[in-house]
């Protein structure tokens, strides 16, 4: 009796095992020919919604920019501006009128043809009152937009703006008759938006009626994670083929094998120690210079990123046309720091509160800064703040002494020309130079004016630009054609080839 019962039990267990193993085996995905491959991309930056003027966030640029939506111009991975939906442009002599000729034969994924009305609609969407676009302030200079015919757009500016065409590369041309921009995406790009399972995956599928060259793969799936470890694990187990931007240098050691390739590209994200330039003691430029010279940025960079990352001496990264290496302006020199402190009247040191975001690398950097400044008699009180508290208290209310923050955009030295910006740097000649630069007649003059402004900003140590993040893309070594510079968070997927 017992033997039969055992036998039956074993039989049931055996069947269960077989079924489970069978399920595990059959669920392995079959990977077809390379041109029809599915690329799995892993990222920490899930879009909030699909509208980059509606608060979609960094993630929506990464997923949709250049893939689903295109602009009049595009920023290549190397940082060059290229024509996309605008085939040519004419600028009037006084620099106030731009006439764009649109590419013909372009349709949206829904089938509607793209016309100048859509361009006008898209530009106005960025400047609209409820627009949450980060580019809104750059388009204040637009006075009016006219559409004399379906293929021509005429934009009139209120003053010269040399960055106008560059800024246009951020604007998506959206379908003016579309109803939903937050949960749907009707663009002109090489991929169609297929599905979005919030918290999990966002899927793009090749657009077979694309006006340009077809993408080299058929399906792109973005997998979103909240946590860098889970993302790394996904790459280790092959669930994703590439990580768009590795944020945890510690974990890179796991990928140092021939199965993976770690690419070190150009990033535009800078880690800043931000002083509140309006209030004591940081309204005194000697104090700011002293603090800057007391912190060994090289050591901090090495301890956080190891061999990666770059030292900058200013807000300007190497990819900006007005870059200069200004690391020597406020060098690491404790004697100099003590001298400057004494000259400013703080020979005995002082205490200040450092509002520190809670996510990496800010806590580590803050702890390091605290121990460095202790050597010159300055006491730092580290105050951890959430994103929300940072935005409220530091950014909106300017209620801080010093804080740490990463600033991701390129060409953002112009923030120092605005005395109302949260760090409150107010230097009339810098503001003048920056405004002049924007109205410059050509790029060369713009660059030289901004260089001059930048040198002043650096000499006055308006902030401490600690280091430039590396842009690390980790991919399986069977993958190629992926962007490595990730400028402004974009991630073009159309050249990625698997195998």
């Amino acid at each position, binding site marked *: 009796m017992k033997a039969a019962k055992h036998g039956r039990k074993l039989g049931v267990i055996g069947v269960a095992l077989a079924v489970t193993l069978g399920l595990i085996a059959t669920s392995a995905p079959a990977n077809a020919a390379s041109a029809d491959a599915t690329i799995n991309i892993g990222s920490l930056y899930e879009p909030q919604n699909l509208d980059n003027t509606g608060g979609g966030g960094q993630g929506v640029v990464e997923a949709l920019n250049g893939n689903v939506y295109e602009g009049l111009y595009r920023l290549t991975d190397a940082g060059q501006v290229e024509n996309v939906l605008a085939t040519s442009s004419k600028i009037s002599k006084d620099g106030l009128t731009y006439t764009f000729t649109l590419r013909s034969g372009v349709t949206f994924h829904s089938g509607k043809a793209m016309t100048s009305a859509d361009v006008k609609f898209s530009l106005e969407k960025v400047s609209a009152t409820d627009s949450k676009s980060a580019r809104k302030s750059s388009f204040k200079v637009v006075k009016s937009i006219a559409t004399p015919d379906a293929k021509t757009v005429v934009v009139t500016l209120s003053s010269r703006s040399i960055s106008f065409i560059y800024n246009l590369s951020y604007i998506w041309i959206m379908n003016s008759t579309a109803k939903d921009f937050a949960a749907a995406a009707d663009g002109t790009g090489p991929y169609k938006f297929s599905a979005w399972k919030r918290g999990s995956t966002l899927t793009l599928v090749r657009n077979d009626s694309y006006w340009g060259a077809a993408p080299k793969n058929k399906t792109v799936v973005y997998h979103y994670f909240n946590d*860098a*470890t889970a993302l*790394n694990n996904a790459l280790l187990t092959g669930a994703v083929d590439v990580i768009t931007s590795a944020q*945890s240098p*510690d*974990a890179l*050691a*796991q990928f140092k094998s021939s199965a993976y390739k770690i690419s070190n590209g150009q990033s535009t994200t800078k880690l800043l120690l931000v002083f509140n330039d309006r209030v004591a003691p940081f309204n005194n430029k000697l104090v700011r210079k002293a603090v800057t010279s007391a912190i060994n940025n090289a050591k901090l960079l090495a*301890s956080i990123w190891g061999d990666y990352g770059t030292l900058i001496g200013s807000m300007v990264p190497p990819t900006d046309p007005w870059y200069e290496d200004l690391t020597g302006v406020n060098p690491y020199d404790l004697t100099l720091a003590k001298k400057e402190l004494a000259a400013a009247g703080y020979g005995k040191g002082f205490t200040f509160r450092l509002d520190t975001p*809670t996510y990496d690398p800010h*806590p*580590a950097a803050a*702890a*390091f800064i*605290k*121990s460095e400044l202790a050597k010159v008699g300055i006491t730092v009180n*580290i105050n*951890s703040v*959430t994103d929300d*508290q940072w935005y409220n208290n530091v950014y909106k209310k300017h209620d801080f002494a010093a804080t740490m923050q990463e600033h991701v955009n390129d060409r953002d030295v112009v923030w120092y020309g605005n005395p109302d910006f949260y760090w409150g740097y107010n230097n009339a000649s810098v503001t003048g130079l920056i405004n002049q630069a924007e109205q410059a007649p050509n790029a060369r003059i713009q660059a030289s004016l901004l260089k001059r402004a930048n040198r002043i900003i650096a000499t006055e140590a308006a902030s401490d630009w600690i280091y430039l993040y590396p842009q690390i893309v980790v991919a399986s070594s069977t993958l190629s054609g992926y962007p490595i510079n990730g400028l402004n968070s974009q991630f073009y997927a159309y050249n990625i080839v698997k195998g």
Partner: protein
Amino acid sequence: MKTVKAHRSWSLIIGLAIISTIILVALISWLWLPYSLDNTDGGRLSQPSATHWLGTDKLGRDLVSRLMVGARIALTVGFSAVLIAGVVGLTLGMAAGFAQKWLDESLSALLDILIAFPTLLLAMLIVAARGSSLTSAIFAIGFGMSAIIARLTRLLVKRVLSKDFITASRASGTSWPRIIALHVLPNIWPTLIVSFALQFGLAGLAEASLSYLGLGAPPPNASWGSLLQEAQATVMTSPIAAIAPGLLLVALVISVNLIADGLREVADPTLRRAR
């Protein structure tokens, strides 16, 4: 008449031994640490060595020191949360135990609602409302657990109140406060202590979960839960950092559970319940 013989309980002894060690380590940490927590010179993520017995974390801080401070925090969380749960729970429970009819029904209903709401969810809500900090976490966990203590107290109080000697006491003119002090409290105390011991462990686990979800005290907090959360990024290269805090937390919880079991056994050795 049952003769209750107090007998040696191995559970109690082992449990007390473990928790005493942890308390000792926490006390020592106030006086001496191998390295100060601000010391980041250890080299990042180094392996266990003669100078750093369990290696260092990603900032170069000594892991042993962080674990010792973590012991402090774990014990603080446990004691404080239990204190809050005890005070709030006992008061509510007493009130409900003495209440009659509709007051009793309403209080009892309120308690049931609170209990139905899982402690961790309640803690997440409170932490979301007050911001992440160790005090928020302790308050949230304590408040969440108070419902359980309250319901138990109510049960025990009602049981005691239904006994004859209470009626006799009242008949002979004893005041309610005296009755509470002389009869109610001494009778409910043993069972409550057991429950406190169990809740201590649960508080530690809840704090670890909150830290793991990123809702606990912000860095540079060194609670064992946060250490676990930080360590998982580098579990392939530095497994010790992920194992040690977990083991310590498990040890703490097991020790209080053993103490709880032991106390039960000592109070009534005929009981063979596991809970």
